[in-house]
């Protein structure tokens, strides 16, 4: 099988997986009681003349839930795949997609630098630790890693805000969304959330890359490289990092998922950044079903495509993984 067919196959599988996930979501929603219908019924029961049952029926008709399941499913699937995700119930009649698109840049604003920084810092410290195992630097890095791992994100964020925002007044406490993107003000208000997330992300990556690199530190091919006259820097970057990068890819993707799904929520709430995380948080609080559904699906999409990327990068990075054996 050629590389192209392999990628095409993985892509097809990705579409199929998405299809299944969206279908299951539909079934779950169809099976759960609709808060809105109950609300209408409750209101109708207070007006004399209409029975609760009639009101319920009217509400169902308005929402379209009185139609056969199969028709609802078809319509739902078409809407989902054409990005016709409906109106948000809490946002003054805005389109769900519009709200997500408005929030996305704010999430990207801190998660892109976080990802770049934590990958660079985490992997290089991990590699250095592995090649200098049990040195003072290694112990210090290990200590820092456990520190970062143990500290809850939101708590660390609040503490930093108290110190640098409230006491020292160096950074604004409330995020200002209307500040120009490429400005010193923006940098100032991004610094704390990025520090909080980088601390958390770096520590994991550091430990993993240390462990992966340790697998190769005593490999015989390093001796071959050294015997060729290769410098120790090149040994680390070319001969240790490259094979260690294969399993690291998996961790990297799941780390990024964690960033989008969990960390972003906590950090955005603490720092009041109007990104995806806070949008989800508010949608849940306000029981805005279409919005909750859509923000969840965004996470699912990232997971599914993350896995696709991971599968492809695996075969690109490790020549021993053949395309055929992974059908």
């Amino acid at each position, binding site marked *: 099988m050629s590389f192209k067919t392999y990628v095409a196959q993985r892509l097809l599988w990705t579409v199929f997986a998405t299809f299944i996930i969206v279908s299951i979501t539909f079934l779950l929603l169809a099976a759960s009681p609709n808060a809105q219908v109950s609300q209408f019924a409750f209101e109708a029961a207070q007006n004399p003349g209409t029975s609760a049952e009639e009101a319920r029926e009217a509400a169902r008709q308005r929402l379209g839930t009185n139609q056969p399941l199969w028709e609802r499913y078809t319509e739902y699937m078409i809407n989902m795949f054409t990005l016709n995700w409906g109106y948000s119930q809490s946002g003054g009649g805005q389109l769900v997609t519009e709200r997500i698109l408005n929030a996305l840049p704010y999430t990207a604003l801190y998660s892109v630098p976080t990802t770049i920084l934590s990958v660079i810092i985490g992997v290089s410290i991990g590699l250095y630790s592995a090649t200098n195992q049990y040195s003072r630097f290694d112990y210090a890095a290990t200590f820092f890693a456990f520190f970062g791992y143990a500290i809850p994100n939101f708590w660390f964020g609040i503490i930093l805000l108290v110190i640098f925002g409230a006491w020292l007044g160096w950074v604004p406490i409330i995020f200002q969304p209307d500040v120009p993107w490429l400005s010193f003000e923006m940098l100032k208000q991004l610094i704390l959330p990025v520090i909080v997330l980088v601390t958390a992300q770096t520590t994991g990556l550091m430990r993993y890359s240390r462990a992966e690199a340790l697998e190769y530190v*005593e*490999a*015989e*091919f390093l*001796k*071959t*490289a*050294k*015997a*060729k*006259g*290769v*410098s*120790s820097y090149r040994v680390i970057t*070319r*001969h240790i990092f*490259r*094979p260690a990068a*294969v399993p690291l890819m998996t961790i990297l993707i799941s780390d990024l998922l964690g960033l989008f799904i969990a960390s972003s929520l906590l950090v955005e709430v603490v720092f009041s950044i109007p990104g995806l995380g806070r949008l989800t948080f508010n949608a849940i609080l306000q029981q805005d079903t279409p919005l909750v559904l859509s923000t969840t699906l965004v996470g699912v999409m990232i997971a599914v495509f993350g896995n696709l990327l991971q599968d492809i990068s695996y075969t690109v*990075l*490790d*020549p*021993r993984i053949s395309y055929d054996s992974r059908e």
Partner: protein
Amino acid sequence: MADELLEVENLRTQFDTDEGTVHAVDGVDFSVGRDETVCIVGESGSGKTVASESVTKLIRMPPGRIDADAVRFDGTDIYSMSEKQLRQVRGRRISNIFQNPQGALNPVYTVGWQIVEAVQMHSEKSDREARERAVELLDRVGLPNPGTAVDEYPHELSGGQKQRVIIAMALASEPDLLIADEPTTALDVTIQAQILDLIREIQEDYGMSVLFITHDLGVVAEIADRVVVMYAGKVMEKGDVYSIFENPSHPYTKALLNCLPGHGDLMGRIGGSLPSPLDPPDGCRFADRCDYVREECRQGEQPPLHELDGTDHRVSCVYYAPGADPSPLQGDADGQGSNVYSDGGYPDE
């Protein structure tokens, strides 16, 4: 000895472990002349591999520690060189090939990439020139279809082919000295002979010296000019290959030769095992397994390498001390003693 290419004096390589310091190589001298093949022989754990890897400091440090009075290569002390200068020697003037071809190539790079790296490490060749050189080297070491093999990954090659690739890599800069650490041990018998022939061939073509590490005395007999017999981090005996085979003098060498199939009436084996490298015993390292052990064997240091009849053949055994009488050893030239017994079995380590 003006024509020595490599001279190693009092090499000591130790490893710090949780249990203590392992004295893997404990004061070893050897030398390799120009165009000469020197074999270091010994059983597993005798320190021969560590000694060979210590020459250009390929040992991981820490946990390893290497020290020597001098390691002279072509007249310069390479142990007083900086790491950067030493890198200019590695691969360019002294190359290594290793025991296990399965592990000696990086699995994620093509064979060509790894040879090109070796070529470009010591030359200003462009990528294209280096690639051409790689194909040429692969052709030289007898890899079939070098033009396509250059783009293959190590896992697509057999063990023998991998070893050829490693030899090609070692030849990239036409070194003066090739250090071959049991290059045939991990291979099939038929492939072993091919690889051995290849090493001999390229040695002649390139006018290289070879330091060959092996436990196989059959191989030694085929290729060596001089032999160094190591045991538990010490040199037991060394000399000209004919002298060693015709007149093995140290009880350990005698016992080793006795383990060769077809040597003597029955195949022997050496009872017991190596002494602890953590806390080597006083006196001769071989004393505990030696049939001729005397009181003085267990005292002081390993005996010095006594000259045998004023030749290059030297033996580290009290029986050959000036004025001592070596006849008790010669009376039993086959080495068939009470401890070194013959039962027709294979040597089991």
